[in-house]
């Protein structure tokens, strides 16, 4: 899977180097369970791959008093819309230094959007509903993907050679919730890379009164 398919795939494919392999990453816990919603970013040769012009439609919906998706990966410069599908109002905010903002979403079917110009993690909250949380990972490389329910993120057409693999998850037990490791991608063919992680328990819902 390409990170921003279909938004970015075409261009990166066109620019794919002659010697390129595939990398299948699986993020999993010590007992082998796949970890969903981890963000895997690849830096072939330790460098970011140039981003394609951003034409993606990115959104985080508010539905049933939850953000959906829980984790969203977007390229630097992306515009993310925040449609409200609930009958109640939401007050979406982030105090992240990456992008500080607040949006007042009055009611159902109202949408606002925000542009993210710097890479990094943007935690989201709702000022009215404490238990709503989500994360946007703004990335500066085209090789980025969120793991599926089996903890898998598959990348194709990676330049062969050493690749820096960065894995982030909101509850990852590591500094800045992130760890890095090195993988070797063949010039041709496919290689699998397991990333064992340990997760902290997610924060419990706040008790309201």
């Amino acid at each position, binding site marked *: 899977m390409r990170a921003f398919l279909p938004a970015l795939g075409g261009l990166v494919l066109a620019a794919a180097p002659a010697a390129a392999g595939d990398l299948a990453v699986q993020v999993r816990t010590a007992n082998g369970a796949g970890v969903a919603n981890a963000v895997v970013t690849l830096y072939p040769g330790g460098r970011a791959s140039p981003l394609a012009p951003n034409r993606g439609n990115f959104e985080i919906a508010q539905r049933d008093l939850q953000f959906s998706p829980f984790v969203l990966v977007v390229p630097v410069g992306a515009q993310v819309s925040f449609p409200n599908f609930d*009958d*109640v*109002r939401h*007050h979406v*905010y982030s*105090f992240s230094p990456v992008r*500080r903002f*607040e949006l*007042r979403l*009055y*009611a*159902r*079917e*109202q949408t606002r959007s925000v542009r993210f110009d710097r890479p990094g993690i943007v935690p989201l*909250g709702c*000022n*009215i509903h404490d238990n709503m949380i989500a994360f946007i990972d703004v990335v500066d490389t085209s090789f980025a993907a969120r793991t599926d329910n089996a903890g898998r993120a598959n990348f194709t057409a990676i330049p062969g050679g050493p690749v820096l693999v960065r894995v982030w998850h909101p509850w990852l037990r590591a500094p800045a919730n992130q760890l890095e490791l090195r993988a070797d991608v063949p010039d041709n063919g496919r290689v699998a890379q397991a990333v064992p992680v340990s997760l*902290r*328990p997610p*924060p*419990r819902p*706040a*008790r309201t*009164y």
Partner: protein
Amino acid sequence: MALVWSGPARAERPHLDFPENLTAVIDFRVVLTDGERSWTDGGFGRSRFGGGGDEIRVHAVPAEAELVWHGPIAWNVEGNVAVAYQDDQDQPVDLIEAFATWRPVPRGPTRFSVRAGFYWPQVSLEHEGPAWQVANMITPSAINSWIGEEVKVVGLEGTATHPLAGGRLSGTLGLFGFNDTSGTLLSFRGWALHDQKTGAFSRQALPPLGPDMAGAQPPWTTPTLEVDHRIGFYGRLAYQFVAPVTLEAFYYDNRGDPAAFTDDLQWGWRTRFLNVGARIDLGAHTRLLAQALTGSTEMGLDPGEDEVWVDTRFRSAFVRLTHEIGPVALSGRLDLFETRQRGEYVYAEDDEDGWSLTGALDWRLTDQARVIVEGLHVESDRASRARLGVAPRQDQNVVQASMRITL
């Protein structure tokens, strides 16, 4: 609610979906009880519903109907106004709570909020929701029964919550008035177990007073009253661990002036107490709640004297376990309580020791309807019951079935 304001949602105007923000709670009750007369009826009984001695009495009553509005006043301000009908109060329809909470958008990991109005400070671990109802049971513990009747303030509080070591630390400081008579019931009646909620304008009945106090205090108290124009304060500290454990401590001092009184002899009671609480989730379906409260209250002072007329030390503790099996929640609770009199004109005959055991089955039929069946046994020993010619040691059994409809 059935009514929905369906005007076009306009971007520049808040959509105050008013009826959506109304909650109505209706509580029909069938009660079987033995034992002594309730304090609500001039007796010393510890329960809201009194018996006829050895004979069992049946009460079938609409025990409560409550209407709550909770919704936005402005973008960062939520309002909560509750009005209740309780058939056995002297003001059957009364204002229960009216407060607003301001929650600015966080600018960092610390969250702040400010609450102002007429409300219960956050002491009870048993009550929840906009209608401040006991979760899974009918009758709250002795501690929280008292909070419900005598610890409600007109106040202003600020809360800061900060993530710490994977958990959450929360601190609250409040200033208040209109709670000067707090402690009257605890002193003259003692602890009780009931689900009455004191309203803004309601009185609560007192049992017969001793001969030295009968001229100083009418046989009732007004819990929401400012007598001495002194501002009281409370503070709360809570920590929610990474593990499913929350510990909290609450300290209250109404800074009442024991020498102050009104024309109808409502006094400034100096009431101070410390409450500690724990909530522990034992797996996904079982939780343990525990609270312990200790404090004192003082009333009445002759000019130039040091010794107050009434000096009541009180303490109580409970442990409660709730286990959910599908739509059914089973709860059990043990309460211990005591009061000791140290004042000049209220004597050891008004000391009291007691305990209570409560079991409840809460069956959620639909999102709107639930049935709670509860059995309560309470025993206590208080010599001043002799004023009514009954034995100092009394026990009582109360079986209640509540049909609770929430709209």
